């Protein structure tokens, strides 16, 4: 069938089952927008800054497991996506981004709103394309979705010059993908699987260390089976949180820099570390030579490049975590490890995760209340900073994929647009945003999008009038010389909410919050709850820089 490449693009998206696009129009992408508004099948969410579009699509992907799709114009539209692309890349989130580009004849001439976005995003995309031939567009879109969503997922960018978009082509959507250089391995190597199963049966003190790969591959049920069959405790990376039930007796909580002491102790003393879809990030391992020093390491990951990148691995298994676990489970028998579990129980008792209740309004209390009131059922988006760690520590997640947060890049400003994307993907679920006063300001323009789309997001600002995490680091490492981390001025978020046509409340105590919470959580509106919490509160425990993770201190 004859159509313009822009129309073909929309047709491709329909055939990929895309239901929603997050975007912002502009000159170079006009032909695509013109085709888009004539398609009845795809919803478009107009954000207020392109960074909002990419974070929203990212969260939509995390919440639904589908590919997030973004559209932006050339130049600033494209560069405004960069942080969001890097964020999705670091956290392995499937995204397809279409950017407009100046006409082919002007590419490379510093034309109006021209940037070399394929060059710029080379280090932060799984792959990217500049479409030079309209006839190639359908195959490129097919490839883009395939690459983004298979193997280790990631963002793929397609840059489409305006003249190419306007060209007429014979539309034919390829049924198969032909990519010589891209063939992910899914099933683990059989002998390695046997070796792993054997080690698991022989180990005395195993610990399962599970990352975001559990969620990406949908391996949460298998993870549960593994833990229960082996009677092995499970610790999650930040990215892995919600991949194992927060109230399960085998759960150790998060490990690493701000992990629980018992998770960190368990890892330090284990004789077998079963790493599943995790990548031994610096925030997880602390001083690398002291990380699980006595352990044999099994590492299961879809990305071969992660294996052996940071630590030495004894049994590497390249494959999809879910498939590999199924293979391993077939060779396991129920194992009782009461001695090891008793040791862990003692550590849990000795070093519980807690905070000082001194009568001041504690941010941790807000999270505990949210966790209790929602019975861990809510989808929780966060920003980056102290509040993020408190969510990780004190919210007991029940369902996979319900924590939506920026792990690898640590991008402040992710939260609000992420909540928008999550709520659009999951219209019937309760979506909560926990954010800080610094983070919320970064992308607060998206409050207009939340209103525009009538999204009943509940926003809790743990407001400590500053950049709490950096302030905490300055307290610890810079002798309390607080430089540029305490805001002289913070807007009144409750009033701000009203300026956007939302409901806004300010609370100063736990009691006030208790009174407000039931009404807020059941409200059909977008609500901001501005919690004026203790500004000096720290995230504790913390592993000091350069130390092993068993050396955590309270602060």
């Amino acid at each position, binding site marked *: 069938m004859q159509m313009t490449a822009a129309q073909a693009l929309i047709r491709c998206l329909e055939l990929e089952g895309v239901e929603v696009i997050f975007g912002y129009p502009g000159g170079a992408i006009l032909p695509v927008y013109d085709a888009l508004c004539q398609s009845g099948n795809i919803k478009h969410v107009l954000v207020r800054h392109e960074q909002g579009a990419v974070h929203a699509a990212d969260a939509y992907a995390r919440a639904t497991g589908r590919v997030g799709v973004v559209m932006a114009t050339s130049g600033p539209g494209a560069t405004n996506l960069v942080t969001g692309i890097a964020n999705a890349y670091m956290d392995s989130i499937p995204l397809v981004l279409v950017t407009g580009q100046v006409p082919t004849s002007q590419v490379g001439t510093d034309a109006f709103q021209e940037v070399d976005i394929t*060059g710029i995003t*080379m*280090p932060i995309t799984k792959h990217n394309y500049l479409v030079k031939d309209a006839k190639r567009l359908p195959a490129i879109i097919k490839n883009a979705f395939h690459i983004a969503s298979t193997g280790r997922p990631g963002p793929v960018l397609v840059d489409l010059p305006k003249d190419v978009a306007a060209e007429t082509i014979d539309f034919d959507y390829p049924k198969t993908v032909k*990519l010589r*250089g*891209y063939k992910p391995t899914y099933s683990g190597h059989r002998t390695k699987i046997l070796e792993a199963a054997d080690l698991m049966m022989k180990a005395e003190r195993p610990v399962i260390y599970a990352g975001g790969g559990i969620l990406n591959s949908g391996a949460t049920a298998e993870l549960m089976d593994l833990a229960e069959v082996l009677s092995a405790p499970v610790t999650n990376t930040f990215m892995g949180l919600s991949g194992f039930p927060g109230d399960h007796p085998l759960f150790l909580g998060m490990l690493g820099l701000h992990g629980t002491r018992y998770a960190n102790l368990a890892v330090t003393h284990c004789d077998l570390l079963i790493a599943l879809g995790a990548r031994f990030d610096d925030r997880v391992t602390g001083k690398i030579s002291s990380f699980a020093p006595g352990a044999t390491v099994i590492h299961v990951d879809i990305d*071969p490049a992660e294996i*052996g990148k940071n630590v030495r691995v004894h049994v590497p298994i390249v494959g999809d975590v879910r498939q590999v676990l199924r293979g391993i489970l077939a060779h396991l028998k129920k194992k009782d490890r009461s001695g090891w579990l008793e040791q862990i129980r003692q550590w849990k008792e000795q070093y519980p995760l807690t905070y000082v209740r001194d009568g001041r309004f504690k941010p941790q209390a807000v999270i505990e209340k949210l966790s209790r009131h929602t019975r861990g059922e809510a989808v929780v988006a966060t920003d980056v900073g102290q509040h993020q760690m408190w969510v990780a520590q004190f919210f007991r997640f029940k369902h996979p994929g319900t924590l939506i947060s920026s792990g690898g890049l640590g991008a402040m400003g992710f939260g609000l647009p992420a909540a928008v994307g999550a709520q659009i993907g999951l219209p019937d679920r309760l979506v909560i945003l926990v954010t800080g006063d610094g983070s919320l300001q970064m992308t607060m323009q998206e409050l207009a999008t939340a209103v525009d789309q009538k999204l009943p997001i509940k926003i809790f600002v743990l407001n400590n009038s500053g950049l709490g995490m950096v302030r905490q680091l300055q307290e610890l490492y810079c002798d309390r010389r607080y430089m540029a981390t305490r805001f002289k001025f913070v807007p009144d978020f409750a009033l701000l909410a009203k300026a956007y046509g939302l409901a806004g409340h300010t609370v100063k105590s736990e009691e006030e919050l208790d009174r407000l919470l039931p009404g807020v959580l059941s409200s059909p509106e977008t609500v901001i709850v501005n919690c004026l919490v203790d500004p000096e509160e720290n995230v504790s425990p913390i592993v000091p820089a350069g130390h092993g993770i068993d050396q955590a201190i309270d602060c």
Partner: protein
Amino acid sequence: MRHTLAVLVENNPGVLARVAGLFSRRGFNIDSLAVGRTERPDVSRMTIVVEGDDRVLEQVTKQLHKLVDVIKINDITPDEYVDRELVLIKVNCEPARRGEIMQVADVFRARIVDLGRKTVTVECTGNEGKINAFEESLRPYGIKELVRTGKIAMLRGNRSTSLDGKKDDE
């Protein structure tokens, strides 16, 4: 240790930038990189010489594999292979001493490709060791300008690293 990698890549624009960018951001050291077309118009081949221990080499290989445009990578270091590099050297040389230079060139089977009033330009091909030795032999005369292509390499015998080829003996 130095490793020689034969890397087949899609003949797409930007593929060199992707590989170069990868090496730079991952902190891998390239000794030399030569790129050119192959027996197939849609495939280019890079010969990359990298410095690093086994861990580094493993990462280089795995990270390269993640580039969608990279089709195949072979570390041919442990194998029997032919490798060549081309060098052009312009040497200071009064006409009276041309004979000497020509003698040195003869030893290395190098060729004089240009004569200036006070210079001689020679080309030489060979493996890296030979090129190094040639360079050293000319150094006393005063090297005015020197350019090397970087190494290219190919397995010996029936074995090949081409797209359909098997590195193992067929």
